[in-house]
């Protein structure tokens, strides 16, 4: 119904004014989410949908389409087979590098059209707040001393969470068993219920249970601390979490959150979306969201983005190879 009104309005606009030169979508734009409902990508897609609609950034509506089957491979294949369709935007994360390596999915991000990197997501090492070990050293010592190995939960298999686990093992010599779950939310609840000993969830996935005092952040896997200084719990802000390096665990990993169009789209179409996401990144909804989810702000397009992707790809590849997750 609302589209009827919009179509009428758009029709009137065309009649009254000279046709606009810039390209604009003529159909509803699909935001393709490579994860299940309620996950970090889905939340981000809905935030963008709301930001676009509330601020009237686009005439056509946005639709979120969830393509989380096969650990998100469904979304990648869907984008790959949509060459030239400028009404689909993918919210990508590290799976674009990792899935083709671990599961031999016939996909290469270079076949898509990069639009913009809109954020970087952090990883934090969490344990259950009821446990006695309060910092990384105590945690690692306890893991080493334990008769049965500590259980580490995470999203999916042979992906960022498991890579981090393997590197923690390599750096410290402690042994972990890795339990793959379908989503970060599941890993969070399982940690609260003491079914696992730790997880390496993104801030957004553990935010609520942290605020409720059920889990404890031990360190953040980045070179520097998270910049947000306003209190999240009664005593701590994101900025109060030490980096893992400070705590003597030299493992770093950041995950991109980026938008891609399918292959073979025109430069005008790319320009429209670059502009759209630039505008989105300036909305209060977006800024609020970034702070709440402790995302690292970044905005890269064009050559900068391609350069970043190439470097990021190489880094992910070397991590995956070293962890032994590349399928033969």
């Amino acid at each position, binding site marked *: 119904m*609302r589209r009827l009104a919009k179509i009428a309005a758009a029709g009137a606009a065309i009649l009254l004014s000279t046709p606009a030169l810039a390209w604009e979508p003529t159909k509803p734009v699909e935001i393709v989410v490579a994860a*299940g*409902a*309620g996950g970090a990508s*889905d*939340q981000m897609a*809905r*935030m963008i*949908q*709301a930001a676009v*609609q*509330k601020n009237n950034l686009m005439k056509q*509506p*946005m*639709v*979120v*389409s*969830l*393509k989380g*089957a*096969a*650990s998100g*491979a*469904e979304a990648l*294949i*869907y984008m790959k*087979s949509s060459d030239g369709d400028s009404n689909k935007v993918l919210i990508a994360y590290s799976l674009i590098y990792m899935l083709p390596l*671990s*599961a031999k*999915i016939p996909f290469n991000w270079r076949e898509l059209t990069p639009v913009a990197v809109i954020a970087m997501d952090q990883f934090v090492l969490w344990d259950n707040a009821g446990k006695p070990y309060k910092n990384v050293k105590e945690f690692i010592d306890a893991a080493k001393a334990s008769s*049965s190995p500590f*259980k580490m939960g995470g999203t*999916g*298999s*042979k*992906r960022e969470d498991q890579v981090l686990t393997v590197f923690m093992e390599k750096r410290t010599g402690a042994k972990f*068993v*890795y*339990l*793959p*779950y*379908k989503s970060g*939310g*599941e890993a*969070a*609840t*399982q940690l*609260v*219920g003491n*079914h696992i000993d730790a997880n390496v969830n993104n801030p957004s996935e553990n*935010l*609520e*249970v942290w*605020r*409720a005092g*059920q889990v404890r952040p031990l360190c953040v896997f980045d070179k520097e601390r998270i910049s947000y200084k306003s209190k999240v719990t009664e005593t701590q802000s994101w900025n109060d979490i030490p980096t893992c390096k400070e705590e003597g665990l030299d493992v770093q990993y950041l995950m991109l959150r980026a938008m891609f169009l399918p292959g073979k789209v025109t430069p005008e179409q790319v320009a429209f979306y670059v502009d759209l996401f630039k505008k989105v990144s300036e909305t209060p909804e977006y800024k*609020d969201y970034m702070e*709440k989810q402790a995302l690292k702000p970044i905005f890269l397009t064009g050559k900068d983005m391609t350069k970043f992707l190439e470097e990021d790809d190489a880094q992910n590849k070397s991590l995956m190879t070293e962890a032994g*997750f590349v*399928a033969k």
Partner: protein
Amino acid sequence: MEAFGLLLHGFTVLLTGKTLLLMMVGLVLGIFVGVLPGLGGPNGVAILLPLTFTMDPTSAIVMLSCIYWGALFGGAITSILFNIPGEAWSVATTFDGYPMAQQGRAAEALTAAFTSSFIGSLCAVLLITFLAPMISSFALRFGPPEFFAVYLLTFCSFVGLGREAKHKTIISMALGLLLTGIGMDTISGQLRMTFGSTDLLRGINFLVAVIGLFGISEILLTMEERLALRGHAAGISLRVILKVWMDLPKYWVTLLRSSFIGCWLGITPGGAIAASFMGYNLAKRFAKDQDSFGKGRIEGVFAPETAAHASGTAALLPMLALGIPGSGTAAILLGGLMVWGLNPGPLLFVEHKDFVWGLIASMYLGNVVGLVLVLTTVPIFASVLRVPFAAIAPMIVVSCAIGAYAIQNAMFDIWLMLLFGVVGYVFKKIGIPLAPFTLALVLGNRAEDAFRQAMIGSGGDLGVFWSNGLVGFITTLALALLFWPLIDKAFGRIGQMLRPAKA
């Protein structure tokens, strides 16, 4: 009775003309998307979510939750009238609901479905109102072994039920379990049985299979029998409704059992889907004449619907209190809450009291208003059966196609649906039961994941399924159900004076 006071406050927030109006709009839209194949609960709510972006949070959430109620009610309609379940939990409703419709008792079946939905939801809402904090800590006790035990329980409640030849039940369940394994394996991240096909990579979507197995195959069977929807379009009147209601007390055991199962599985994250199957199976297992199930027995509608809706409602509890959605639709609602800056989690009940109790109050009101609304519209839905078959058949085919396509936007799914239509037709004719197949398709993957997670955690020790009271109890219960016929016989042999306890 702090809860009671807060609830009253919630009602006062809601009882304004504007909110009530929004409620009605939400319910009507919800029923609408629930009835439309291919929309159904989760998709429908997702699509309507943007409508609420421009409202204030309370109105938005009231409207969203009413859409949710509407969709829950609406899902039963297509299951009963056309044998097309819109959601996983409506599948069990087709088992007896559709035969009832064929016998010209569509109105009765619909009334039964709506009424039992109402009862189920009401039980769950009562539970949420008074036990919310306690329950959410219970849900936390579920780790991989517990999840597996619950799925095992569902499967075990099923085996040995049908009258079909045993090997055919085995074929049906094994095939379902196999097909659910196609695609990517969560635990190892490996691809299985895809043969390099990018279409198979996605796996076989449960709803696509069900739409084919039930919807398309039904059309083929109907044509063959030249029955052409023998729609005794019996006039629905207050009399039919009253008759069903008068019968309700007779089935109090079934209703109570299903409500209990539903509430319990609903608060178990991810367990909601199993509820309707288990409700149905247990009703059948403990019935005196099991054979009359599947042939249009009203109890066969009461049992799954009560359980499904109790679980659908109870599933909101882990979502609100823990931030884990218990069902697909709840997951979308979760997304909606986030847009409003209301982060579901343990603190929601503390920090946003107004909102939470407003929502709970809207559950009560939404359910009552919803029941009245759907009951008054039963005649409209039932009259669909009076349309000539030659007109309704292609429309059902189109609806099935829309439903199958909309799930993953894939043409491949249309072919899959057609294939499953033929499979369903042939299986029904040679006596391979479809129910174990659908159950396996829904739960197979989750059960396998849970089992393997439990194995990784325990280092391969099967003892983990008896490692604590909770999981040990469920596992033992499951095995007891599996061997129930043997146990029953053994008891009978020991002596007639020792009647087996009904548990």
